[in-house]
């Protein structure tokens, strides 16, 4: 009995391990094939949509019909968007597809911009046509390269699974498999296109936004400003953290407070010595102040810090804190680009956050022309379905970093709150916002 017990147990263990191993193997294989299929699909969709944008671009250049322009531009932006989405799902390092990604994003964005223009009754200028021709040439090249790559993948010379394995840790460094090599080549030689300056979120014009103006201040001076801003009587210790560059050059400080357990972090601009942002840590507690009281605290704080004429526009509440948006206002006109956000604790009214980047970049003396439309004329352009609650003049930011002078109408339709902007010069409907009033967020009327 005992003589064969051990061998049997060992044999069984071996069999079990074998079964387990085989299961793991099949499972692994299934997952591998599944991943392969997903990548394959993304790649085929990419090839198809790049091919489609190429054709649509070529048709656009010979078409002179407005309706056709609109249809083609809509298609181009949609297909380019889809191509971009699929490209970003391939397991290829970021550096190898960066340019192709940018090309597709800008193509989609530029087509949207032109579409808006044509829809508004304007025509595509010769300069814009030149840009389109250049974009088309790139689409042709990209398409040809992708088709060639497709053949190699089809013939089994290159596979996705191998790349996925290697690509894992090489997001920033192109690996040396065939597919990635091809993409690197496409990126380096295939894509050259005009610098596109237009009114859209990916416009090159947005790249060089101006730094804050003013004289450069020392670290010591910045520390004083930080201490003053938080309140000299509240600060326990203030320590230099790091310098920042980028859109702004800043001095950053870590701050500890008296009778408060959580640290603050504050950044002061080197030029002009303005507080760019303040980030305070906190622990959720029981709110004792109403949202209205929180708003008053925030408004008083801004006033005390020398930001005059700031009016609250939107307020959110999370647990025991509230974030209030303020915009600059002058002569009854509200300037949304000049935005400051203040975060206040509803537990004790403490200021927990301040963010003035937008304000610092946008705020300036503006020379506004008189509106061409009267309030009455603009009101007639708003859909009669909307039950109007209020109206005023407003300057709103556009996607491309410009500004638009509008009439702002707030109104209700079917229980929902909407804001409609009518261009004060042209009477065009510049934008419609739907306000989703939740427990957490509400509009300041």
């Amino acid at each position, binding site marked *: 009995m005992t003589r064969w017990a051990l061998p049997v147990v060992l044999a*069984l263990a071996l069999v079990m391990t074998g079964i387990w191993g085989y299961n793991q193997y099949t499972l692994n294989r299934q997952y591998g094939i599944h991943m392969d299929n997903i990548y394959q699909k993304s790649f085929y969709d990419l090839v198809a949509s790049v091919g489609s944008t190429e054709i649509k671009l070529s048709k656009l250049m010979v078409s002179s019909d407005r309706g056709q322009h609109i249809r083609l531009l809509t298609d181009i932006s949609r297909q380019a*968007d889809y191509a971009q989405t699929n490209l970003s799902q391939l397991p290829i390092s970021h550096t190898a597809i960066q340019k192709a990604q940018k090309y597709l994003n800008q193509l989609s964005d530029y087509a949207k911009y032109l579409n808006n223009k044509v829809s508004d009754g304007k025509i595509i200028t010769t300069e814009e046509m030149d840009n389109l021709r250049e974009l088309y040439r790139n689409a042709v090249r990209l398409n040809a390269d992708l088709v060639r790559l497709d053949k190699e993948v089809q013939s089994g010379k290159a596979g996705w699974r191998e790349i996925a394995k290697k690509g894992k840790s090489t997001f920033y460094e192109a690996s040396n498999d065939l597919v990635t090599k091809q993409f690197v080549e496409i990126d380096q030689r295939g894509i050259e296109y005009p610098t596109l300056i237009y009114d859209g979120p990916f416009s090159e014009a947005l790249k060089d936004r101006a730094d804050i103006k003013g004289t450069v201040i020392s670290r010591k001076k910045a520390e004083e400003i930080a201490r003053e801003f938080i309140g000299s009587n509240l600060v326990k210790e203030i320590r230099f953290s790091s310098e920042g560059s980028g859109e702004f050059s800043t001095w950053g400080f870590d701050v500890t407070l008296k009778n408060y357990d959580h640290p603050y972090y504050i950044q002061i601009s080197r030029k002009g010595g303005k507080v760019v942002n303040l980030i305070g840590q906190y622990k959720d507690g029981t709110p004792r102040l109403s949202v209205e009281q929180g708003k008053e605290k925030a408004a008083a704080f801004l006033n005390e810090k020398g930001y005059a004429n700031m009016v609250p526009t939107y307020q959110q509440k999370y647990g025991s804190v509230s974030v209030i948006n303020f915009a600059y206002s002058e002569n009854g006109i509200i300037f949304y680009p000049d935005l400051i956000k203040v975060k206040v604790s509803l537990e004790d009214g403490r200021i927990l956050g301040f963010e003035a980047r937008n304000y610092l970049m946008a705020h300036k003396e503006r020379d506004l022309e008189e509106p061409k439309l009267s309030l009455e004329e603009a009101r007639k352009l708003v859909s009669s379905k909307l039950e109007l609650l209020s109206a005023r003049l407003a300057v709103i930011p556009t996607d491309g970093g410009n500004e638009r002078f509008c009439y702002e109408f707030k109104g209700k339709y079917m229980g929902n709150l909407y804001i409609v902007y009518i261009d004060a010069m042209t009477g065009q409907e510049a934008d419609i916002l739907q306000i989703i009033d939740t427990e957490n967020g509400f509009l300041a009327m």
Partner: protein
Amino acid sequence: MSDRNRLKIVSVLAAFLFIAAALNAYYTDRSAAEAAALGWGSSGDKVNEIQSKLKQWGYYDGPITGYYGELTYKAVRLFQQKNGLKVDGIVGPETAAALGINLGGGAPASSASAGGGGNQNDIYLLARVVHGEARGEPYVGKVAIAAVVLNRVRHPDFPNTIAGVIYQPGAFTAVDDGQINLTPDEESLKAARDAMNGWDPTYGAIYYWNPATATSKWIWSRPIHIRIGKHVFAK
């Protein structure tokens, strides 16, 4: 070998297989049960419901935030203790039944949209990346990581949605090693929300790395904006 012995082997083998199958089934079941339970870090309408129920019955005196944090956890434990349930601070099927709440099979994250501050789902997803990538970093460092994700969404070289940026293959180690699936803590949620509300201590950075461990040559060619905690941020 006699017939009896052969029978023995077969039955032992059958027993092993049965155990293996049972284990397999157990693990599958367990993950399904986990999906339908709410615990620390969960958020959404269901959490709202739990908090209001507990408040009504006097177990909870915190605010109704829709977020399952320390206060809710303590209140749930108290409720379980008083009602003879297993005291684990998790609202599973039994606790939910005792509370009179239907958990359903849905994910714990809510789909309610919150206007201005962004979609709750987006905030939760962002918080998960922050939790996976920046645990142990100062709070500002967490806000910075969330800001980088959002800066990528706005940058032409990257995908245009939060999910697209986060799940771009290889982009975040926390996504590759599955740490993104951990439940984010309260601080990560706060950091995600701050970034969504426009706080960006990195001024438009789209890359970050840990100088102690980064090996890529390319990444060091990027102009560095700022250093926060262990990470440097660059464009």
